[in-house]
């Protein structure tokens, strides 16, 4: 018993942070290094999934679940879907030019050094006292973030009820407007995605200005293009319908 009692404190927070951060970073590097687009998507899933773990760890349960549901379960499925639709060879290799690598490494490396230096340099961000205090006072079932979040989305910031500084509380905005307006945006995007993904309807438009304009544009195109889209649809025509619903899909989901 004594043995067990002696090691009562294991640094769980640190442990899980390192775990999730490690997975996230390692697989992000894998995303960068791999030449296979499908594996890239797969590593991205793992990376973003463990990012959701980080969100949980920082007390943002709802956002973490949202990340899993919409980002990983919606957006990335969409991306993989796109990969499948467009992959010609079975395993699409993408070779990056070595000079690109060198350049990217230099620029990216210096940017990284700069950003990490900035992140690690600010005193108020390095202050662990809040973290320790929070851990000490932590109630296991304390994390009720969904309700204030939901209320904030309807414009009521309950988290600012006991704000010390009422002036700053005003700057703590309710998010009713973006919540509503983003739905309009999603609708527009939905229409746009559906428009882009579906094939051009047969030209039933009456001959007139519109038709002339269209024909002229096509004619301009033909002066330089030898290939028009023709057989290209064979590969994806059967799948395009479902893809369209897919695209509508993720936005719908986001809307929820």
């Amino acid at each position, binding site marked *: 018993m004594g043995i067990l009692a*002696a090691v009562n404190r294991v640094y769980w927070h640190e442990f899980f942070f390192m775990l999730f951060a490690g997975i996230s*970073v390692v697989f*992000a590097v894998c995303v*960068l290094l791999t030449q296979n687009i499908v594996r890239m998507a797969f590593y991205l899933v793992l990376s973003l999934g463990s*990012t959701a773990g980080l969100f949980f760890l920082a007390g943002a349960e709802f956002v973490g679940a949202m990340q899993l549901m919409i980002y990983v379960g919606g957006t990335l499925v969409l991306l993989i879907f796109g990969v499948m639709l467009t992959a010609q060879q079975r395993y699409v290799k993408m070779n990056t030019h070595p000079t690109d690598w060198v350049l990217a490494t230099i620029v990216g490396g210096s940017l*990284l050094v700069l*950003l990490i230096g900035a992140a690690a340099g600010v005193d108020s961000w390095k202050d*662990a006292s809040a973290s320790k205090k929070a851990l000490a006072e932590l109630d296991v079932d304390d994390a009720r973030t969904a309700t204030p*979040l939901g209320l904030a989305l309807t414009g009521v910031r309950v988290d600012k009820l006991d704000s010390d500084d009422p002036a700053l509380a005003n700057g703590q905005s309710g998010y009713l407007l973006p919540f509503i307006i983003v739905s309009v945006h999603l609708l527009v*995007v939905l229409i746009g995605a559906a428009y882009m993904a579906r094939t051009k309807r047969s030209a039933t438009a009456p001959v007139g200005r519109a038709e002339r304009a269209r024909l002229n544009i096509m004619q301009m195109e033909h002066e330089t293009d030898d290939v028009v889209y023709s057989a290209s649809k064979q590969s994806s025509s059967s799948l395009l319908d479902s893809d369209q619903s897919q695209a509508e899909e993720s936005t719908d989901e986001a809307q929820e």
Partner: protein
Amino acid sequence: MFGLEITPVIAAITVSHYLIVGAILFVIGAVCMATKRNALGILMGIELVLNGANINFIAFGSPYLRDDNLGLDGQLISLFVIVLAAAEAAVALAIALNFYNNHNTIDIDRADELKG
């Protein structure tokens, strides 16, 4: 491990730690955007960039990490970012498919009709 007092080999987790993860994801995403030739690969890089920013927002808003924080704003902004990223990805994918239908490739280097 039994019987030993575990000394803290690592300092307590602070906002900076999260920021470093965010910065790494951001830079990797940016490099991904620069080096990948596949349009969908670039999109994946963008997702990484957005996630790097999201980690920042969550860290800045976390009551566990910092007293004087963004509060719920951080979480709310990242919620919206997730939604917007989904919308953006949907349109970008539709455009990529449209490109593929016309060019029979998704390699962005083949997009060379427009030069000058």
